[in-house]
Every structure is written in C-alpha cells, then in structure tokens.
C-alpha cells in the first residue's frame, strides 16, 4: 500500500505582534509543520512500521523555504517528498482550497496512492476543506476528522472513527482508495530522531512545477482583504472553599452558560 500525506508549512506568530495592512511583519513570524499534518505523518509512518504500507510519500505546496519543514516529515520516517511550486503560484497569494485540491489531484494522478492522509485543517488559514475537496476531485472515498484508524485493511477497506458535532463519534468503513483527514490526538507524534534527521538530508525531495503536473495557470477565488486581531474577553469566577460547598455553585453556573443541562 502506498500512502500520500499532504503536508503544509504554517506560519507561527509570536505572542506579541503587529499587523501591517494584511500582513504581519517577518520579525514576528516563524514557520512550522502544521500540527494536524504531524499526526497524519505519524499515522502513515506507524502503518509503514506495521508493514501495512510499503511507501510513504509527502506532498507540499510551497516555496523553497518550506524544504526545512518537509525534511522534518522525512526525518520522522516518510520515504520521499514532493514539493509543488511555480512562479505563477507565488503571484496568486492566498490559494483557495479548491485550487490546492486541483494541484494535489494532479499529484494523486501521478502517484496513484491507496490512501491519502491529510490534516483536518491548517493552523494558520484553518479552511479545513482541502482534504475533502481533493477526494471529490480524484473520485476517492473519504472520511473527515478521523480520530482512530484500525491498522488492518480487510477487503481493501479502512475502518475509521470520526468526530461529528456535539461530541458524537461515528464508526464507519471507507473503501480504498480513500482520503482521510486526520484529527489531532489520533496518535502521539514522535520527535524526529537524530538518526532520522541525518537520514532525511539524503532522502529525495522532488520539485514539480505546474507544467510538470500538466496544469495551465492557476487562479484563486479568494483574496485577503483585511487582517485584524479578534477581540477576546475573559470571564473568571472563583469560589473559595471545598467541593462540598462549591460544587452546587459550579453546576448552576455551567447550566446558566449552557455548557451542561
């Protein structure tokens, strides 16, 4: 079985920062492997360690700067990496999930993976739509917000548990090939080992342009028009005393706030 993991590099920001128009100045920004994708990589590597997968390939849409983040996924155990980039993409700015899905679909056509693992969402743009859009483009079955995957694929079926709204979970089977969007907590991502980091420097990282993928021009349906910090407010109630005296007050408050019924 071949697994393709979609890996994004996300922007991280310092606790204190300044917004200038629709950007944050470089000095406040960092970059990291998207948290959800870290879990997706771990799941794929575990499947490989269990001899259920033969190859784990990562794919990233991003400029050369993203290579370090891609190497992080390779250091954790992925076999090779693809990076899709083109000057045309740099000109577009904010890519919408549909456009990303088009690019990734071309990669899926080339690679023909049995399983595509994608993070539920990215930590910066938080669209949460790319994985499912990709499944639609390539005609794969899909399951979103997967928080458990059985490590056996009887009759080419993936048995998954997925999160629904309101704390409800669903157990379902998905025929392969499939796209699963992976939720945090499905496993415990490892640290890249020193040996892994060393080996990752020598693993293949191939760059593909739009031409290579047979895509002519890209356009995004989205444009970033404004950036602001949402107002936040805190409301803290503290009760002094033991549980016997205060539990009732807490219960009333939770009911009042609509958290408990």
């Amino acid at each position, binding site marked *: 079985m071949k697994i393709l993991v979609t890996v994004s590099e996300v922007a991280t920001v310092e606790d204190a920062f300044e917004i200038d128009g629709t950007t944050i100045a470089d000095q406040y920004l960092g970059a990291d492997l998207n948290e959800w994708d870290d879990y997706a990589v771990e799941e794929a590597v575990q499947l490989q360690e269990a001899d259920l997968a033969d190859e784990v390939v990562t794919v990233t849409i991003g400029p050369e700067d993203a290579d370090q983040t891609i190497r*992080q996924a390779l250091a954790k155990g992925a076999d090779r990496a693809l990076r899709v980039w083109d000057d045309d993409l740099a000109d577009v700015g904010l890519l919408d999930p549909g456009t990303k899905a088009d690019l990734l679909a071309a990669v899926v056509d080339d690679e023909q993976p049995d399983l595509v693992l994608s993070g539920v969402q990215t930590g910066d743009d938080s669209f949460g739509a790319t994985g499912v859009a990709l499944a639609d483009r390539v005609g794969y079955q899909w399951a979103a917000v997967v928080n458990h995957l059985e490590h056996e694929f009887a009759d080419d079926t993936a048995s998954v548990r997925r999160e629904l709204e309101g704390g409800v979970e669903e157990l379902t089977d998905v025929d392969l090939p499939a796209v699963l969007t992976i939720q945090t907590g499905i496993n415990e991502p490892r*640290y890249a*080992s*020193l040996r892994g980091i060393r080996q990752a*420097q020598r693993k293949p990282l191939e760059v593909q342009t739009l031409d290579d993928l047979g895509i002519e021009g890209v356009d995004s349906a989205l444009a970033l028009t404004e950036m602001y910090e949402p107002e936040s407010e805190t409301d803290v109630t503290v009760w002094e005393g033991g549980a016997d005296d205060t539990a009732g007050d807490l219960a009333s408050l939770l009911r009042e706030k609509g958290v408990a019924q």
Partner: protein
Amino acid sequence: MEFGLTDEQRQIREEITRFAENEIVPVAEEHDVEESYPHDVVDAAAEMGLTGAYIPMEYGGAGYSILDTAIITEELFAYDPGIALCIVSTSFGCEAIMNFGTDDQKERFLEPVALGEKISGAAISEPDTGSDVSSVSTRAEKDGDEWVINGNKMWITNGTVGDFFVVLCETNPDAEGRYNGFSQIVVESDRDGFSAEKITGKLGIRASDTAELVFDDVRVPEENLIGTKDAAFMQQMQFFDETRTAVAAQGVGIAKGATRAALEYAQDREQFGQSISEFQAIQHKLAEMATNTEAARNLTYKSAWNVDQGEDITKLASMAKEYASRIAVDVADEAVQIHGGAGYVNDFPVERFYRDAKITQIYEGTSEIQKNIIAREMLGKGF
C-alpha cells in the same frame, strides 16, 4: 570561512527545542528540588537518539561530530542544565571505548548506550585525587585472567544509575614517570563488590546523579581493559579537547538560557509605570549578556570545529572552557539581578541557572587549571 549552520544542524536545534519545551521544562523544578534523576525524560531522549549522539551509526548512534554535539549540548543546557547533563552524560566514558576499544568492546558497550538501554560513566576523581589526576590510588591487580579492583571514586556522574563505568586504575605502581602505569578498565555495576552511594546536597545540577563508588575486590575479565595497559593517561589526554569543548558548550547553553529568561522577564515586569526593559541600566545588562554569550559561542564552535578537523588544540579548548564557564556564571548572575527579588526564589528558572552555572568552572579541569594550561602552551610554544 563559514560561520553558518547547515540545514541539518538547524533542524537538530529546532527538534531539541520542541523536545525540551515539552519534556524538560515542565519537570525541571521538581527534579531540582527533589534531587531526583529524571528517568522518564532520559528514556524519551534516548528514543530520540540524544543519548550517545556521537556514537557511530554502525553501533546504533547518530554519528554526529563534536560541533553537532556541542550544538545539542548548548540547546539542552539552555532549558535546564541538570536534566541536560543527565541526557548528555549517558555516554560518559564511551569516548575511550570508541577510540581505543576492540570491535567486541564496542559492540558490548557502545551499542546499548546508543540505543538508550544502558547508561555509562567515567570514574576518574577520588577522595584525594582532584586536579592532580596522577595521584589516582584505585588499584587493579591481575589475578589469572581477571582484574581485581580496589579503591574509591568520588563525584562520579551517573554513579547510582549507571550500568558500567570506565574506571581509571593504577595497574603498574612501578612504572617510571608520574603519568605512566594507569589503565582504563570497564567495571559493570552489577559486579560483586561494587557499590555506589548517592551524594546529595549539591548546589546545582541537582537532577544529575552524583555518587561515590566503592570497589571492594571487584573482579572483571581481562578483556574489560580498554586500549593499552598502563597507557591510560596518553589515551585520556586525547579527549581533553573534546570534553572541555563539551563543557564550554554547556556554559554557552546556560548563558543563552539565562539571557532568554532575563529578556522575557524584563519585558514583562513593570516598575515606575513602564516595562523595566525601557531602562538603560537593564538594556546595557542585556546587551552585555548577549554579546558575551555570542563571544563564548564562537570560541566554543571554533574549538569544536577544530577538534573535528583532527587538530590538536589544547590551548583553544582550554580557552573555550574557561571563558564559556565564566560567562555562564556572570550571565546567570546578571539574569538574577534583572529579576530582583523574583530571581532569588525558584518561581523563575534563573535561580536554577545561577546555581547550575558554577559547576562548569569546576569539573573537567577547574578554571585555574585551564589558565595554567593556556599559559603553559603560550610559554612553551609561543603566542
């Protein structure tokens, strides 16, 4: 001349930052207060391959250079020197096995250390043997095909948690010359007659295990002798450049951690209606701390790089060790000063850095010994 780090080195540093923030920082104060060895953290570090990073790939290590190892050491010590020492010391003594051991010894001893299954230690100091290493009195006598060892070792890192120790023993009291007649012999801690007593009440690096070892007719097979009999000093001297550079990296790490903590506190703390980082007195302290740390780092990296090139750099390694350890103490001192009263209690990590820094001026050759060496090299070989 190239001053940049490679992508790989940057990646190591970032991964260690993630590891340290998640695994070390939350438990650092607890292990310091309780003087307890952080077994769980060391196990997690072993899984990541941080233990025995310099052990070659063929023996299960990562095969990292001295410069890579210095970067790892610096980064770990910037978060908590006590726990960091526990991690980097799991392979103490192994450098002798790596360089002078037989293939069989490397397989027996290096591999389990690299894989995190065993912890090693180096046993040199004795109750009456500190800077004057040639006064070692622990005796190893040959009896058939075994060595019989008697004596005491003092201040031994990993003493009560280690699985084996590379012990400096006198094997030929009649040898001519004060540096001849000593050998390095591996003693496993489960041998009859071996005992270790933990030393408590340390000023700093309290998570790290320190003990007195007692050898009472301990018998080990003759194949536990590392390298050449009676030539331990010649063997050991070859690692001084490495081990002193490693302590220099510890000092750089402590200075970095203390500076980072002070910078953060200075920006948060308000007095007289403004952040204390607005005051020039504080700004100048921070500027000097950062500058001195950078100078110590460059001296240390240069020393490490030269060791990797196979250069004999006695003077440079001593300079790096002496300077970086002094900067660690000075910077930690200023970091406490910037914290004021808050820095005098263990609500903030600078109190720990202040106590932890001091050891770097004492172990692996005191600052005074380092200066003696630097001066001796200058007087002997010229400037």
